[in-house]
């Protein structure tokens, strides 16, 4: 509705703005930290809840959010690296030579058995968490842009290589699932994306995300959590 197209609607718009506490442009300035203390106090009196929502983020929160964004964009420091559990068969001679090199490197690094891991899901279209616990609520993803984050989290910080793989289990059986993931410093494996990125071609329904994590070539821990893919995707 462009101003002037209908004087009645101009009056309606003005009346609506008069009764809308959020129409004050100073609320945006508050989020930028650009108001004087007097102006901040005035807005706090005007609408305490809005003030609470829009007061500037503190330095720690800003640093956390900015670091998270940069880490999502750029590769994390390589304190650990992802190694697929499935490896191609290689000639024995190459394997033997590689084994010697690996052994030499291995002796110099603190790569003992992994601590216990847990699988945690965050996101979806409900405010829920799901994980290895059977009574955990199940995140639901309806829209293609709904985001889900899968974390394989160690009970204690991990040094050295971590290998992982996942599959999906549903009513029709098990299907391969190879989303992009990253091992973060400390050994947490993070898989994150939208429904269309993570579950392209996966039919709607209740699915179990079945992951395994372990040292390359060593025993693996099995972890599971459920996710519901709605019909709207």
């Amino acid at each position, binding site marked *: *509705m*462009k*101003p002037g197209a*209908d*004087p*009645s*609607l101009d*009056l*309606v*718009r*003005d*009346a*609506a*703005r*008069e*009764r*809308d506490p*959020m*129409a004050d442009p100073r*609320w*945006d300035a508050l*989020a*930028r*930290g650009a108001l004087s203390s007097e102006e901040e106090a005035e807005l706090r009196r005007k609408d305490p*809840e*809005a003030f*609470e*929502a*829009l007061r*500037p*983020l503190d330095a720690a*929160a*800003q640093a*956390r*959010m*900015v670091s*998270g*964004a*940069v880490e*999502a*964009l*750029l590769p994390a420091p390589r304190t650990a690296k992802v190694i697929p559990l499935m490896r191609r068969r290689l000639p024995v001679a190459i394997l033997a030579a590689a084994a010697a090199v690996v052994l030499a490197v291995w002796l110099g690094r603190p790569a003992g058995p992994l601590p216990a891991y847990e699988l945690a899901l965050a*996101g*979806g*279209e*409900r*405010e829920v968490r799901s994980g290895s616990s059977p009574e955990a609520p199940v995140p*639901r993803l*309806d*829209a293609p*842009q*709904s*985001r889900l984050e899968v974390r394989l989290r160690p009970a204690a910080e991990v040094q050295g290589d971590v290998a992982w793989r996942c599959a999906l289990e549903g009513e029709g059986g098990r299907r391969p699932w190879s989303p992009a993931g990253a091992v973060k410093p400390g050994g947490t494996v993070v898989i*994150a*994306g939208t429904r269309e*990125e993570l579950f392209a071609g996966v039919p709607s329904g209740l699915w179990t995300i079945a992951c395994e994590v372990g040292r390359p070539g060593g025993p693996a821990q099995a972890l599971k959590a459920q996710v519901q893919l709605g019909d709207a995707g």
Partner: protein
Amino acid sequence: MGPAPDLSATFVRRALDGDARAARELAQAVLPVVHARVARLLLRFRTAARQRDVRQEVEDLTQQVLLALFSNGGRALRAWTPERGLALEKFVGLLSEREVYSILRSRRRSPWTEDPTEEEILHASPDSRSGPEGLIASRQLAQAAVARALERLSERGREMFQWIFVDDRPVDEICEITGMKPGAIYVWRNRITQLLREVAQELQAEPGGPRPPLEVNG
């Protein structure tokens, strides 16, 4: 924190292509925009956000939106081109609203049972409206009509009223945020203008209610 970076296409490209310092500056620069849009949308639709402490909700959603902007190689931000006429801040604001709206929408118990049907959309057009032209011609009547119309509108209707009639947002922008078709937005516009017409007529017929003004467009 240093001086604000020049948010040009070249700078954004450099940040997304792996310049860690530029990436940090870019994230720092868009963070207040994301924060403000997230908070505004949460406050507009407080019913959906009321389940949790508002500050915690704002911080969680702000972080989630910022991550979405920068993940997958910054794919969402790479879609920005200044030639399309949107400044980066506005583009980021729009993406933020779309993300938050999608999250809030999924939390509602009876989602969108009142959304326009395909048939309604088919018959709607940008011009097929019967507005309150001439019926609301004073500030007093407009205030009373807005108050009464808002009482009768659902949360979804209030969203549409805000975007279409108060914020004057273009239809394509509303579609971008909500994922609705333009026809559905026209249907909502028709419904709300019809409602305004009805409440204006009611108010004028009520004894002691706002009267048609003597002044014109006063």
